[in-house]
């Protein structure tokens, strides 16, 4: 069996602040095979964006990163600052949240697309720059004339496509997309997601799609990981997860979503997500879990175990199973 392209082992991102320790990501383990799309779904406070930043090693003090992040066999956490800088964009790229707002308002699109490549030492002959930019813009479905424009002249969807072009400009091996369509209308959202998916497939990249929209996950990814309060609760094939969710949180989450046919039926999850500052021991979902086992769930965190091939669950309900 081929080694997975991305292997994250026991990733911990803690922030040490005056009020205590914020355990934003608390022991995360997952893998992404080459050419596959993994969805990481979680609500606010689940730690998913922190995880994305941790993978890119963009966590600043007082945050610390522990664990292993292996991309193509190389542990990113062991690289020097300079090596990591080179790895960003060329090996692993990110479309950040609110990416449309991360474009420089006073620079032309062309310059912004070229910026990363030039910074990584790529050299272009005369006239080659325009060609390359046009190629990248075409890849994301934009016309070449966009290159001369400024960000404020573009619509939200177009800006999002530009950030995708920048992220993919050096054909990285791994693409992390953090809520790439959250501010977009539903029709544009579909177009942008389909464009990203097509590119990931064509270029045989691996993608980690981070978000809170289960619907988008269902439409886009191959495998799904569910995150809650800094912990992974369940991982599995996306069809499998929706058809047969094992973790109570996953079940409750899927149940609460509107699907054609269940109009007027509301199954919310009572309670509120816990705070991640000085978290209490035990499973973070215990206080809201309908299947909580008294005496165990509140005091012991359940380890993430592979129940079936490719199916991982962190839940005491399955302690007995092999």
């Amino acid at each position, binding site marked *: 069996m081929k080694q997975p392209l991305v292997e994250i082992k026991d990733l911990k991102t803690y922030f040490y*602040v*005056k*009020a205590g320790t*914020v355990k934003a990501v608390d022991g995360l383990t997952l893998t992404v095979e080459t050419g596959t799309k993994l969805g990481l779904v979680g609500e606010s406070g689940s730690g998913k964006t922190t995880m994305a930043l941790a993978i890119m090693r963009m966590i600043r003090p007082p945050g610390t990163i522990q664990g292993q992040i292996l991309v193509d066999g190389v542990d990113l956490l062991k690289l020097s600052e300079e090596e990591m800088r080179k790895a960003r964009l060329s090996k692993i790229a990110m479309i950040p949240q609110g990416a449309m707002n991360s474009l420089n308002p006073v620079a032309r699109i062309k310059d912004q697309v070229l910026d990363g490549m030039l910074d990584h030492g790529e050299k272009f002959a005369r006239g080659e720059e325009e060609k390359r930019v046009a190629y990248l813009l075409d890849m994301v479905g934009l016309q070449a004339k966009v290159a001369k424009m400024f960000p404020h002249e573009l619509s939200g969807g177009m800006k999002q496509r530009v950030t995708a072009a920048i992220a993919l400009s050096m054909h990285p091996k791994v693409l992390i997309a953090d809520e790439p369509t959250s501010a977009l209308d539903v029709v544009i959202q579909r177009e942008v997601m389909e464009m990203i998916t097509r590119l990931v497939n064509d270029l045989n990249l691996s993608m980690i799609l981070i978000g809170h929209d289960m619907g988008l996950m269902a439409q886009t990814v191959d495998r799904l990981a569910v995150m809650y309060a800094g912990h992974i609760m369940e991982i599995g094939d996306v069809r499998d997860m929706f058809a047969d969710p094992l973790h109570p949180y996953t079940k409750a989450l899927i149940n609460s979503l509107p699907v054609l046919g269940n109009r007027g039926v509301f199954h919310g999850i009572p309670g509120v997500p816990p705070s991640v*500052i000085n978290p209490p021991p035990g499973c973070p979902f215990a206080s809201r879990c309908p299947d909580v086992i008294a005496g165990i769930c509140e005091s012991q965190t359940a380890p993430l175990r592979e129940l079936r091939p490719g199916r991982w669950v962190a839940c005491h309900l399955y302690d007995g199973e092999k």
Partner: protein
Amino acid sequence: MSGFLSYVRRNPALGVGIGMLLFLLLFTTLGRLFVNPLHAYPLSVMPTQPPSAQYPFGTDVQGRDLLAVMVVGTGLTLQIGAIAGAIGLSVGIVLGFVAGYSGGVLDTVITSVIDVYMSIPGFLILVLIASIFSKVDLGVTEMGLIVSIVSWAGPARAIRAQVLSMRERPFVMMSKLSGMGTFEIIMKELVPNLAPYLVMSLSQTVYGGLQASLGLEALGIGARREPTMGMTLYYVQYYSALMLGMWWWVIEPIIVIVLVLTSLVMTSFGLDEIANPRRRKTV
């Protein structure tokens, strides 16, 4: 009180600024117990004395005890700043709120007045007005009033901008839906939110007023008979104190001025953190 102190630990600028201001206020008030205020005026003591046990701050050419001058003068200079700040801010608040909240014609009129006003160099206005009064004996209060002529425009504009942005916020809409009237909304919803900004504006206005007064006084336009810091510097210049080797007379007012202005700047920085919620550290 303990809450305030622990906050100050996280916001050192505010602590330092307020601390310095308090020190200066104490200096000018309690200091009067240790010196004879009358000695801050000419022909009180032996002139041109370097610092000694008898005259810790030395004396100047006209026979003023410089310790008395510093004690009294600090208070006078602060007074000018306070008057300029208070008037500037009050006018600025009224105009800023009215223009920002009402919008429409009223806003256009007020903004145009402010814009025209601000395009005229303030210092020229001040010099002009002050020289009209040059034959008159100016007191400290009059200086404060004169300087406040140019101190209202900046705050008015800045406050208007703040009010404009706040006006569109959903909580203002909610207040309307809760039956609150315009005046009530301004007083109860907008002003408390802007309070830190207004206080910061005050320290900026005081700062501006002080700068203007120092500038005027250094040119000799000011409360000539009073030992303000600006006037002291004027006389330092007039009598070429440095050439006479009277270094104490030169650095003492400068130190006081630096302390006053720095304290205002620090307070302003510190208040900016409160006024600008995004800069607040959340944990």
